[in-house]
């Protein structure tokens, strides 16, 4: 695994925006039968989730989260050096959504902006990329915007994905701080897993069908659940062990382990395998669903907002999935403004008018 380290980078704040559309597992009961839907909901831990209306994009949710975060931190917009948008549901094939967000957020034209196409591993990767830009001779302030609307890619007829995914957008503020400890990073990839979690159509290799071809399965997310599970069991335990070694920590010294919120069964199985005590494992699936690259910051804001606001926290952030791609971050956060979860009830047009 690629080993990295970030120095003099502080996680200054975090905000999450979720759509107002609240969905419930009974929809799947009507579609797939009550017994099967209930078993699935119990296994995944997702009885309720939030999904975005078709016209709401991940960028809209990230936009709202970023506006709220800038207000909370009191950061002037002309102090932002870069924005990184991590998503697998960008607004367009081109231009990069980060460019549109620079304009929508009213950031100066001196801002560096680009997209990163990663899903479940996207938050650790995003922290590493954004953090690497920061330094005494580099950028001072970077916004990491990680969000997805994966529910727009799931087929209502597929029991493996229909009730699992939710949508969210997040904004994380990173800034130069010479007095903070190092952040330890591990990253890895095994692209042989490309077909196990894949949306085939819509890219350059398989351009069609358009979004109008509702019945064509190639426009929907295909997920081989058993492959995902076996991949995770293969990769995550050594990732956690090596990350602890890199940081020089024992599991006892970690306050919380926040993994990509794939499903509750998987997280609890990994915790048993790694001997992570239940009180250190964050499970924040119910109410939101699996929100792809947004799931780690969402879980932080949902489960640890009070702790993050009051005391330093030693955290392991572990992302894994589509690619196959994985990343782990070991960091100590200082007290930060209490992370907020805001509900987005605006349409993209209203958001644009507001900014």
């Amino acid at each position, binding site marked *: 695994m690629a080993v990295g380290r970030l120095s003099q980078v502080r996680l200054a704040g975090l905000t999450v925006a979720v759509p107002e559309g609240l969905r419930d597992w009974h929809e799947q009961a009507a579609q797939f039968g009550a017994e099967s839907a209930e078993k*699935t909901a119990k296994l995944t831990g997702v009885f309720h989730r939030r999904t975005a209306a078709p016209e709401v994009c991940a960028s809209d949710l990230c936009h709202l989260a970023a506006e709220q975060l800038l207000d909370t931190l009191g950061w002037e917009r002309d102090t932002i050096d870069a924005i990184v948008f991590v998503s697998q549901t960008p607004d367009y094939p081109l231009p990069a959504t980060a460019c549109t967000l620079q304009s929508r957020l009213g950031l100066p034209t001196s801002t560096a902006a680009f997209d990163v196409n990663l899903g479940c591993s996207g938050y650790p990767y995003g922290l590493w990329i954004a953090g690497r830009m920061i330094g005494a001779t580099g950028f001072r302030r970077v916004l990491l915007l990680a969000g997805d609307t994966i529910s727009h890619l799931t087929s209502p007829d597929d029991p493996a994905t229909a009730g699992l995914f939710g949508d969210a957008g997040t904004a994380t503020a990173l800034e130069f701080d010479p007095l903070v400890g190092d952040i330890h990073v591990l990253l890895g990839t095994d692209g042989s897993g490309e077909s196990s979690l894949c949306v085939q159509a819509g890219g350059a290799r398989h351009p069609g069908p358009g979004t109008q071809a509702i019945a064509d399965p190639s426009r929907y997310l295909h997920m081989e*659940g058993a492959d995902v599970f076996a991949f995770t069991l293969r990769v995550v335990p050594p990732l956690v062990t090596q990350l602890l070694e890199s940081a020089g920590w024992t599991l006892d010294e970690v306050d919380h382990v926040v993994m990509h919120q794939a499903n509750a069964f998987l997280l609890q199985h990994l915790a048993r395998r790694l001997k992570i005590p239940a009180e250190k494992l964050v499970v924040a699936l119910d109410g939101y669903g699996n929100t792809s690259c947004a799931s780690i910051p969402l879980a932080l804001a949902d489960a640890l907002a009070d702790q993050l606001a009051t005391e330093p926290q030693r955290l392991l952030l572990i992302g894994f999935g589509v690619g196959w791609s994985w990343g782990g971050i070991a960091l100590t956060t200082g007290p930060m403004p209490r992370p907020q979860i805001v509900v987005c009830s605006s349409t993209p047009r209203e958001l644009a008018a507001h900014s």
Partner: protein
Amino acid sequence: MTRHEFLQLVDQVLELPVGTLTPADSFQEHENWTSLSFLGLIAVVDEEVGITLSPAAILKCATIEQLMDLVADKLSDHRRAA
């Protein structure tokens, strides 16, 4: 773990009374076999035997006997490597 105990694990995964299945039975054709029991089987073997079976290899097993052979092979590879 004995083969008899393994058989009981498969009963458990398929939510059947202990002693229902025999080594000659096809677990994948049982009416209780679903995508969730597929995950359950991988999880229980990982937890009880300490090895992660490949889903593709599981799908190639026509009977529980073949599944037990797969686990035994994988376990001896694992021990050789250790």
